[in-house]
């Protein structure tokens, strides 16, 4: 890649002064990440439980 061109492009991006990301965005993303992590763990946990444990033993 042409370094000069890349430099010019980066300069344009740097000059583009837009507000920093809103802190509530971070909160929302971290919440989503937390739930995704929990969902993944719960999924893995369920998969590892022998199917017989899900049978209703009180009916026997």
């Amino acid at each position, binding site marked *: 890649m042409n370094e000069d*061109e890349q430099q010019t492009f980066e*300069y344009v991006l740097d000059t*583009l002064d837009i507000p*920093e*990301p809103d802190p509530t965005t971070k909160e929302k*993303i*971290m919440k989503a990440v937390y739930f995704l992590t929990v969902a993944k763990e719960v999924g893995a946990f369920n998969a590892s439980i022998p199917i017989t444990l899900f049978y209703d033993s009180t009916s026997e």
Partner: protein
Amino acid sequence: MPPYEHFTDNELIDAINQGDIHAFETLYDRYTSKVLKRCYFICLNLEGARDLNQEIWVKVFLHLHTFKKESAFSSWLYRLTTNHCLNYLKSKAYSEQSHRELSLDEPSQENPAASIEVHHLLQKLSLEDRTILALKFLGEYSYEEISGICKIGVSAAKMRVSRLIAKLREEVAP
């Protein structure tokens, strides 16, 4: 908690892949402004860029295990950003006209004069021009790949990039 701010990107990624969400927070803090700027460059709308930034970070979390560390994480992240933004524009049947109407009132009040100039300069570029620049410099696509995506010849892609950069340089470069 480990001193994540001293971790390299790849060390953070290893920690995230082992389920450490605090490491993900550090990675987010490190790159979120850069991702937001890149989203803004493509869609030229602050609200839209914020939404895209949010979606991109969830996508990063979901797909991080596919990052093979063969290149820098930033390259992978910026390519994902570029693809996500361009797909968004495509899926919304993005209209250049409505985009212009939306973006006219966008410059931030804190903007120095140079930033406002850049904003207006970007507004003058067509969506196609910004797409080509984004593919080349954000997504790091080769001219051959750009040629395939934009359905133009390789030499036309090269010429377009060179002409656009000359235009940017002429108007904003120091």
